[in-house]
């Protein structure tokens, strides 16, 4: 499975430009004509549009709800907004600064959790992947397979023993527990992905640098790292979304305290304790999802590439 352009522009070659006889169509043109025939099928278009609408409406409804006044939300459905438009930011204000919700604080927590939890595993994994790809040492392949195999260990298996270690060393309830846990859980996948990318780099490039007398560290920084930018970007988007959206790890290690707990924990809690306060839940949900959606929109290209490279985490 590799990414490939839909209509790889085939350069019109010389013989194709010869005027004699009907010109042979390029592949791109064939595909284009095919696309035209596709578009004319009203059924296909109709089904696609219906699906797109179905997939969008739930989010859209909650978005509309989040900007309606509290009283209106309880009295009528969000679809009445189109005939009776109202606009307020009061819900967002309440959710962010209200003493009982304080999403502002949790937003900071999520940010503080996410950034190191992205940087740390990427750094460690890059180094390890380099060693697995380009340093020869005894037992390397076996070790790599073992790391690869760790991908399938479900998080659930590790939570309680890890928690008890954190408690023992006095780190329980601090950011360190969440940082360390996320970093560790990300490693097998990150190493695997980076290793795949590194293996694709031509051997001659590395050998050439080696002949020039470059050591491993210099090869890593000067030769490989610049070529790995897309891979790192892909995994960054990945890990960012994963950590930002995670509930299980945060719930286990950070608990519910406003000092450490992230948005997801607070949101889940709110959904349980004040499940009917849709003015809070709608605005809260959008506070939580705005950053990952932006990251996603800007990094979609890399994200997709990461997915195609087998980057799926469990």
């Amino acid at each position, binding site marked *: *499975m590799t990414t*490939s352009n839909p209509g790889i522009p085939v350069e019109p070659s010389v013989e194709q430009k010869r005027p004699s006889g009907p010109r042979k169509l390029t592949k791109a043109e*064939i*595909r*284009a004509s095919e696309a035209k025939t596709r578009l004319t099928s009203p059924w296909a278009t109709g089904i*696609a549009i219906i*699906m*797109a609408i179905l997939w969008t409406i*739930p989010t859209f*409804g909650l978005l509309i709800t989040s900007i309606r006044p509290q009283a209106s*939300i309880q009295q009528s459905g*969000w679809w009445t907004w189109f005939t009776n438009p109202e606009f307020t930011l009061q819900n967002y204000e309440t959710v962010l600064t209200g003493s009982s919700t304080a999403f502002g604080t949790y937003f900071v927590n999520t*940010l*503080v959790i996410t950034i*190191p939890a992205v*940087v740390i595993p990427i750094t*460690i*994994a890059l*180094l390890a992947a380099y*060693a697995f790809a380009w*340093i020869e*040492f005894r037992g390397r392949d076996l070790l790599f397979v073992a*790391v690869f195999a760790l991908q*399938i260990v*479900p998080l*659930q298996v*590790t939570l*309680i*023993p*890890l928690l*008890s*270690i954190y408690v*023992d*060393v*006095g*780190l329980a309830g601090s*950011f*360190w527990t969440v940082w*360390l*846990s996320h970093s*560790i*859980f990300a*490693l*097998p996948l990150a*190493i695997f992905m980076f290793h795949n990318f590194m293996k694709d780099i031509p051997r001659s490039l590395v050998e050439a640098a*080696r002949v020039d007398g470059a*050591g*491993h*560290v210099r090869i890593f920084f000067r030769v490989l790292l610049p070529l790995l930018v897309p891979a790192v970007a892909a995994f960054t988007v990945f890990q960012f979304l994963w950590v930002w959206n995670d509930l*299980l790890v945060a*719930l286990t290690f950070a608990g519910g305290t406003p000092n450490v707990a992230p948005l997801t924990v607070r949101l*889940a809690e709110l959904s349980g304790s004040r499940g009917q306060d*849709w003015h809070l839940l*709608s605005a*809260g949900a959008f506070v*939580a*999802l705005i950053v*990952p959606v932006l990251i996603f929109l800007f990094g979609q290209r890399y994200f997709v590439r990461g997915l*195609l490279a087998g980057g*799926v985490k469990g």
Partner: protein
Amino acid sequence: MSDTQTPEKADASASDATAGKHKNPVSYGALAVGFFMILVFAGIVGLVAASFFDAVPEITWPSFLVESDTAVRKLGLMVFVVLLFVGVMALLLFMVDSRKRVPNWTVAIAFVGPALAALLLGLIWPGISTLIQSFYGRSPWYDPERSEFVGMANFSTLFTTPEFQVVLRNTLIWVILVPLVAVGLGLLYAVLIDRTRGEAISKGLIFLPMAISLVGASIIWRFVYEYRAPARPQIGLLNQLLVWLGLEPYQFILNVPWNTTFLIVVMVWIQTGFAMTIISAAIKAIPDDIVEAARLDGVSGLRMFRYVTIPSIRPALLVVWVTITMTTLKVFDIVRTMTGGNFQTSVVANEFYTQSFRQFDFGLGAALAVLLFVIVIPVVVYQVRQLRISEEIR
């Protein structure tokens, strides 16, 4: 491949014992790194052992490291950690990167060591510990006063108690339905929008739920399912639709047995985008000549789909299927946020949380976690084998 940093060193298999005799002196910095990493490993093993015997000394961390009550402190700590971490790694590398002779094992250990240490501490040891715990009762297995060995009792509880049988049945329904529907819809959509105008946007609409947290998605859908008594105006879209059709509003989340299906819808909503993306890329990767040859033979429409598209993207379909199965197996956030596992909707991953952190029955919790692990293994083995086969064909 050269064994050491210095090109002039010819003997690639020189052991560390001969290192001292070599003319070019060994880099002490690199050796220090090697010993440092060995110390780290020893430290981790020691820590695990001490934790095991409940003998970890009380550590008082500087308050700025563990206390984070204001935004400034939090952000400051975050910057500190990132810098500290990058600094330590840079130092390790700097010490390894010497003009002097560097034994190969120190380079290898500097590069791989941190990852291995982390995995040992955070995945391998906890995994083993949980496995052992699954054969013990409620209390931690390493607690000599309270722990009791129960053998397979936890597992037989899981398989014979009616409430857990419901959990297992639900998990089975999730694991079958979510991949089936998500892959089906993803395939349908990918084919429908392939090479149409505005393809990127149509894809983005379906794909976007992937960026939303499962908690967020659960809230979005709880609002769709929101129920009000028949006399009151409905605010949930689905119930309003029912009312418009002249039907009674329905408690989508509460009413057994269909409520599990309505939770599954949320997961399908998220995973379809993933399936669609991978399948779409696979469709685009079908070699043009195959499609062209089929067209020349007069194949088109559904037959093209059945005899050209599907066989060509089989490996992609398989990967998507397996991946979604594994993700679904561990689904926790949706059940927890929407029902808390009540109304007979619990699944294994949610029940693990409930037993471990609500009931504090570590034995049962561990058994549920181990169960998750055991179910995953055959799925992964199957995938690896299939992938190997498809690679051989290629």
